């Protein structure tokens, strides 16, 4: 490649990066915008202020975590640890949700860029973000399947309020036999962002309701439930239905309910 080509590319690169750099005062800070997009398709802005005659502080004003937060990525201890690792690799700090560095004035550009890198890398947490799928689809199929039990003389109540030893719970479906006997409580559970927390909450409900019900947990998106969370569900004595397909989940649930109520 001739020097003419490399020179023109170099000029184009300088122009591209140069036009994306800005520094403007904002209060006690200097607002510095640097080139290079995050995954969100925006440039990164960092804020610098003098601490002493020689030293400056550069930070992102918590905008990286605020951007994640506003897009549904809530900061769990695990995610905070990840962000701290990113900061450590880049030799900046991550404290109180802020990427920060303290440096000499001559190092300001270097550390501003490091903080920018940390912000850009933090945006990769968006890749892990997944939405909470509404439970309605699975519940609709479960409702349809359980309604068939009414013809057999069972009483089916949806969103039934029940008092436990410590709290009042709401059971998705309560199926009570026509004659005396223990009822079944069916709960549809989505893994959310923490299957373990969902399992813990469900386990609390089961133990709090003690012997009032035979419990059936219908798991939505079973591939996202961890083994540990599944073990907890089994250990509290719940029958677990893995709803891989909403349409078949209803039928499966009905069969399990009939089984626990001794009808099969």
């Amino acid at each position, binding site marked *: 490649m001739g020097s003419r080509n490399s020179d023109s590319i170099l000029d184009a690169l300088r122009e591209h990066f140069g036009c994306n750099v800005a520094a403007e005062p904002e209060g006690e800070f200097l607002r510095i915008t640097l080139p290079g997009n995050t995954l969100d398709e925006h*440039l990164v802005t960092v804020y610098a202020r003098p601490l002493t005659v020689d030293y400056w502080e550069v930070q992102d*004003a918590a905008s990286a975590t605020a951007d994640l937060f506003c897009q549904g990525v809530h900061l769990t201890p695990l995610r905070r640890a990840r962000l701290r690792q990113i900061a450590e690799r880049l030799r900046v700090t991550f404290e109180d949700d802020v990427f920060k560095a303290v440096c000499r004035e001559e190092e300001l550009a270097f550390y501003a860029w490091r903080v920018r890198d940390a912000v850009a890398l933090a945006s990769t947490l968006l890749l892990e973000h997944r*939405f909470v799928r509404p439970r309605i689809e699975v519940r609709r199929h479960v409702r349809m399947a359980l309604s068939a039990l009414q013809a057999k003389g069972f009483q089916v109540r949806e969103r039934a309020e029940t008092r436990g030893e410590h709290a009042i719970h709401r059971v998705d479906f309560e199926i009570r036999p026509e004659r005396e006997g223990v009822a079944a409580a069916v709960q549809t559970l989505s893994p959310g962002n923490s299957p373990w927390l969902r399992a813990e909450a469900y386990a609390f409900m089961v133990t709090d309701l003690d012997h009032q019900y035979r419990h059936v947990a219908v798991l939505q998106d079973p591939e996202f439930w961890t083994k540990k969370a599944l073990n907890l569900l089994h250990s509290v004595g719940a029958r677990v239905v893995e709803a891989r397909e909403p349409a078949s989940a209803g039928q499966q649930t009905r069969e399990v309910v009939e089984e626990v109520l001794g009808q099969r």
Partner: protein
Amino acid sequence: MARRLPPPSPDYVRHVLETPKRLRCSLNELINCLNRDGRVTLPIELEGTTEADPDHGVELNVAAKINLPKSWRASLKVNRQRVDGVDWHATEVKGAGCEPLSGWHRHVYDEAVGDAERNRVPIEDPAPDGKIKTFIESILKMMNVYIDAEAINGQQELGLDP
């Protein structure tokens, strides 16, 4: 690798966006929480509903950690997906009308795509006086959220995100 699950249905999101929404938290409480934690998540109730919808969660998020208005953010989320939002970026990307966009902008829900991430339209500075109270008042007005003063009296502790 986690599979990306479907977002809430566009019909429901449209319903949320069009319906006036109720916030059971006073402005002062909200500001106090922001001062303490730097961010706040508050459940939002749709007008006309009396109990929480078990299948959908609507929440308002505000983040304002540092007293630098351009670092403040707000979003309205359904099932943890942003369907409306306000933020500032020194960005030169294509806005809704394919115009270069920088500064304060609003994330507008795009039914075709099913999210509000790329569809941005420029807006006026929501806090021209640089005050958080003005910022919050502006975004509540924009997002059609009102503070239910009657409900605040005697309410239990706020259900804030940990």
